[in-house]
């Protein structure tokens, strides 16, 4: 028999490949420059900026109600929660207390946003690891949430439903009925997700003890959201600094101590149950009242600095507004969770196989427009 042709790259020699910017498993235009020895990852350098739109710069030349429409486009799967962060910051600066009705509706919609975001995570994560069925199941159920959004907010993904002082419109008469129908449906469907993916041995083998982050590392790298909580760090803004109606509902903060890819996945799966619990506590008793406070036609924030954190589906979003008293902000900074979560990718994937890099990247659930802003 003939000798097989030798590979041109010896196994001990390091070589570099580009993953992205047009790679399906990078979930957007993210380019990873990966150094490999054989199949083992030595170093990952993320190159970002392909979808940088200069949102922070744009904010400096527009008014506060207009900023809402830009924050939608950062983390487009948590659009509603991003808007809420800006609204809460503006309301805090002006000393406006919105009605209980607004608080409750915002909370319900935030939790629906979280559910649909985690559904899409589940769908694409399964697809990253080779299970195409998940993608259809996940998107099928996500449509039901998007239909609720469409009816009440007018938009499906980019909702722009919050505005400083309350909501753009009152909820649709069908809102409560359809949300309850969805919760009932999804309580029966969510166990199906577990049967399909969570218990699968191949799935577990590819995720357990891969991309492990300890609690100390999570603190040092500033990881929040499901990524931080999978490493045992209690960092849920809804628990620690409750906003809107989170102080009047009971729910558990999901924490695992393993810190690997599988437990980042588990946190999100369990959070969907908690989100449904929160919605069920609120949906039947939405208080009556105004859906928006009366605001001045031109909103000017008093001179000063304002910080507001919210818990998006991916972690802590911080909005830092510096005002000089004009109708435009002097400086706006968005501390976006995905930007922070991308930084330790090199740490997580060193020593892993290149196929594991796809799994680790998927378990971080990165949204690239939120990184680039």
């Amino acid at each position, binding site marked *: 028999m003939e000798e097989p042709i030798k590979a041109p790259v010896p196994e001990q020699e390091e070589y570099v490949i580009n993953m992205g910017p047009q790679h399906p498993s990078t979930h957007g235009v993210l380019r990873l420059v990966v150094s490999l020895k054989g199949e083992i990852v030595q170093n990952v350098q993320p190159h*970002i*900026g392909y979808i*940088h739109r*200069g949102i*922070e*710069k*744009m904010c400096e*030349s*527009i008014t506060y109600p207009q900023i809402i429409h830009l924050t939608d486009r950062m983390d487009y799967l948590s659009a509603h929660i991003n808007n809420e962060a800006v609204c809460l910051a503006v309301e805090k600066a002006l000393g406006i207390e919105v009605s209980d009705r607004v608080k409750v509706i915002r909370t319900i919609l935030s939790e629906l946003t979280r559910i649909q975001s985690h559904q899409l995570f589940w769908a694409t994560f399964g697809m990253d690891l080779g299970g195409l069925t998940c993608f259809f199941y996940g998107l099928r159920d996500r449509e039901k949430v998007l239909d609720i959004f469409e009816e009440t907010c007018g938009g499906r993904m980019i909702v722009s439903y919050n505005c400083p002082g309350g909501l753009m419109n009152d909820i649709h008469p069908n809102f409560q009925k359809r949300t309850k129908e969805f919760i009932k449906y999804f309580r029966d469907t969510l166990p199906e997700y577990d049967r399909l993916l969570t218990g699968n041995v191949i799935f577990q083998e590819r995720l357990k003890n891969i991309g492990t982050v300890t609690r100390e590392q999570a*603190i*040092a*790298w*500033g990881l929040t959201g499901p990524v931080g909580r999978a490493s045992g*760090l*209690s*960092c849920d803004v809804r628990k*620690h600094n409750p906003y809107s109606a989170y102080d009047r509902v009971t729910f558990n903060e999901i924490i695992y101590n393993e810190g690997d890819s599988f437990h980042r996945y588990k946190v999100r799966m369990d959070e969907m149950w908690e989100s449904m619990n929160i919605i069920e506590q609120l949906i039947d008793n939405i208080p009556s009242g105004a859906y928006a406070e009366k605001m001045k036609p031109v909103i000017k924030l008093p001179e*000063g*600095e*304002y*910080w507001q954190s919210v818990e998006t589906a991916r972690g*802590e979003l*911080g909005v*830092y507004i*510096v005002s000089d008293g004009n109708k435009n902000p002097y*400086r706006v*900074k968005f*501390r976006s969770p995905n*930007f*922070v979560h*991308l*930084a*330790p990718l090199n740490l997580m994937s060193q020593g892993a196989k290149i196929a594991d890099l796809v799994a680790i990247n998927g378990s971080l659930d990165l949204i690239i427009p939120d990184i*680039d802003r």
Partner: protein
Amino acid sequence: MENSQLAALAATIAPDSQVVQGKQFVEISLSPADLYSVAEKLKNNSETAFDMLISITGMDYGTDLGTVYHLRSTVNNNMIVLKTRVSDRENPEIDSLCALWPAAEFHEREAYDLLGIRFRNHPDLRRLFLDSTWGYPLRKDYKDDVNILAK
């Protein structure tokens, strides 16, 4: 820990700096020379224990450039704000905090990219979003011919 207690404690940690109890957080205004040592003390002091860097914001104050640091203690669940300013717009230099918090690496690269603030002892200070031919867009004197929103 209450903010008033924290302000008193911060005043002992950073005696040469101005400690203000703001509306939300305690704010410390530092000279660039003090920044690293004060941040290190705030992190390692067991009472303050600011172990988590939340964000770094690059600022253009018109004449000065500066950075704003939001730190959080996961032990006490509170936050503190550090501020520093440099007046040299041509070559602004501030100490990097990467040795204290690895999270600072990306935040500082962002501030360098958008405001041109150089961080001393940063392990890998390259531009993050834009290529090297761009100016520094978040500076107030940046001329933007493309943005139709800019007035």
